[in-house]
């Protein structure tokens, strides 16, 4: 085996790299929800609805990653 040679499933490595961004993004979204709820508890319902929409949009990238990791080997 030559040094620095990657064997195995490159798709899963790609998915792992691609899940960094959405992981940070989802964390930021819900951090904002928690802080906003701490400042103004009455706004919790509206904030949570927007948070779920934002969560689905951000999570889409990670989910596309895992799906394409299977499709492309």
């Amino acid at each position, binding site marked *: 085996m030559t040094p620095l040679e990657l064997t195995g499933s490159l798709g899963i490595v790609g998915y792992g790299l691609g899940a960094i961004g959405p992981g940070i993004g989802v964390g930021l979204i819900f951090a904002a929800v928690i802080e906003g709820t701490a400042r103004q508890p009455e706004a919790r319902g509206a904030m949570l609805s927007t948070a*779920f*929409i934002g969560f689905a949009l951000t999570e889409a990238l990670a989910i*596309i990653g895992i*799906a394409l990791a*299977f499709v492309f080997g």
Partner: protein
Amino acid sequence: MSGWTGMVPMEGFEAPGVESFDFPPLFPGVPGLEWFNRYMLQALVAFGLVAVFWLVMARKNAMVPSKGQFVGEAAYSFIRNTLGRDMIGHDFRKYLPLLIALFSFILVNNLWGVFPLTLLPTASHVGWAYGLTALVWVLYNAIGIRKFGFGGYLRHATVPPGVPTWMYPLIIPLEFLSNILVRPLTLSLRLFANMFAGHLLVLVFVLGGEYLLLESEPIVNKVAGVFSLIFSMAIFGLEIFVQILQAYIFTVLTAQYISSATAEEH
């Protein structure tokens, strides 16, 4: 030390993968029905259920609503207020049947993934996601073109107001790519990938747990199999949540795209 064997490769275990989603036609002998597999059957039953539900809902208008009428009216007014009126604006009634139909159809098709008799979400076959997205894409572009004319719609979609002229060569290709080419891709792939990955996750935990528990020897594996099967129920609950959420997200984004295609300049 007979129970502990360290890392044992799992011979005889077929990991679930893309092949788990290939389903043969339901009537293999009949010559005209090669397209009729499990996905098509589920989608047709979903179509029937949704059509019957909303037709019945439109007829029975008792003053004091029964439980079924209450659920139907709650769903209808939720879509009408949150998506139609707040997102699209003042002529949202034209698009309300589309939003209601999209939400109901995608919800029922997603929930086939947790329904005991089927256990397969229809959108885990990518063609279903592509078809729904093609409808939405043609629709929101046609709505914009009908309102602004072809050139006017392209200008409206690619040039945000207030951008200085020297940025046009940068902004126009980027916005064109993002609004007209990438939107259908992400809309369809989001629905498909969520259903595909969710179903695959359930398959991994259940099939893996069953293999570990019943078909492998070491006691460590059997205990791990029990935990895997228990955890698969938690994943199942997550799947229910994700399926309902994805149906809602598809409808929300459709309303958003229609709204941004018809938005007036301030």
